[in-house]
């Protein structure tokens, strides 16, 4: 995992590209891939958690009073907005 941070040279990268620590994808922030961002209208949100279930990247986080988008990982696919039964999520251009 340190390889991701330090930019190791070819002599030091692990053989076969095997990453010897688990959970390394958390280090890989994918939010910059987004061209549209989901924005939640808290007034409309019924906290049904449909968006939380549907998000393919676990970028919808459960918080005490409903849900929040984790913009470090959200790629802006828009599934949450499409699935929201009360249209509480709109996609805004970045």
């Amino acid at each position, binding site marked *: 995992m340190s390889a991701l941070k330090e*930019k*190791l*040279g*070819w002599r030091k*990268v692990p053989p*076969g*590209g*095997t990453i010897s*620590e688990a959970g390394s*994808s958390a280090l890989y922030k994918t939010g910059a891939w987004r061209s549209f961002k989901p924005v939640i209208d808290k007034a409309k949100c019924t906290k049904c958690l449909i968006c939380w279930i549907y998000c393919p990247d676990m970028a919808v986080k459960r918080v005490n009073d409903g849900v929040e988008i984790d913009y470090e990982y959200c790629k802006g696919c828009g599934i949450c907005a499409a699935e929201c039964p009360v249209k509480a999520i709109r996609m805004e251009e970045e």
Partner: protein
Amino acid sequence: MKRIGLTGDEAIAYAAKQCDVDVVSAYPITPQTIIVEKYSEYVANGEVDTEFINVESEHSALSACIGASLTGARVFTATASQGLALMHELLYIASSLRCPIVMGIANRSLSAPLNIHGDHSDMMGSRDCGWIQIFAENAQEAYDWTIQAFRLSEDPEVLLPSSVNIDGFIISHSMEGVEVLEDEAVRAFLPPRSGACAVDPRRPSTIGPVALPDYYFEFKRQQAEVMKRVPVALERVCREFNRISGRRYGKFQSYGMDGARTAIICMGSAAGTARHVAKALRGKGERVGVVKLWLYRPFPVDELVRELEGLRSVVVMDRAISFGAPFGPLCSDLIGTIHGKLPKLKVLNAIYGLGGRDITEKDVEGLYREGLRMAEAKAPMVRVKYVGVRE
């Protein structure tokens, strides 16, 4: 040691049986080989303790082999022709993930037209896949190299897959006397695979992750370097194999190179014909020799330069076409090898034997004569010709 009758295919299967293979995965359909057919008999008869995984394609066969190899198992498979072509993308994954799989390949032509006979088109089509590639001349060599290939692949300094290539039908289906080792001797030579396996629930890891432009190149550069360790490891393996078998292998084998003006370089069964003709010609005072290449990848660059130093010309025999390239694949490698090192060495590239077309003593004698003519001062530096094809 005892001597038994085996085809090239059976010799490889027999060797794999003695190598105590944990997993074999294969797709049993034409163009398969008798290698896995024979091996499945061993499994059915309870002669081996091997998990034999039948799959629906060669693509899946090598995929299953890769998965098994990553668990630390000793893995073997075999294929030919279209089957190897279908494995193509997995060949790269096996070498990149450093899986020491051994595969027997009965080299056959690629479609179209459909043809099931011997040439090197299949392996040459995948020659850049990062595998160690060994070519055997006969059933004895096929047997010996299979055992050595496991030791070489599993060497902790190497950890790369190997292919043991035999000419389709000419070697794969011809029966010869083969001296086989005692099971115990092979077991002592090839202890169970050791070292850490990649898949281990106690040590979670990510295998085959994505590596984008900021990292991919470093992994490939490292892989290129690992190939350079193979020749040293190969010498070690061959030296030890010599101790138990009395047979000495290496990167290539030479015949009649002492004082030779021209020599044939080739791989596989053609070497026998070349040696036979060279012997006859040398008996008549002609200065001709043979270099039979065992190790095609990694290509033994420095050793070949030393071996060819005294020659005036060399005849490079390619049993495959590299369409649109200036030479056949072996000849391209050879010219890259001698460039700047043997500037006066003339090269005749002979493309021969496609789709199982026979290469005769007369053909080979013609090549020697032409090689000797090229050694004359006025002859061109490089020529390419097709041998045994109708105009």
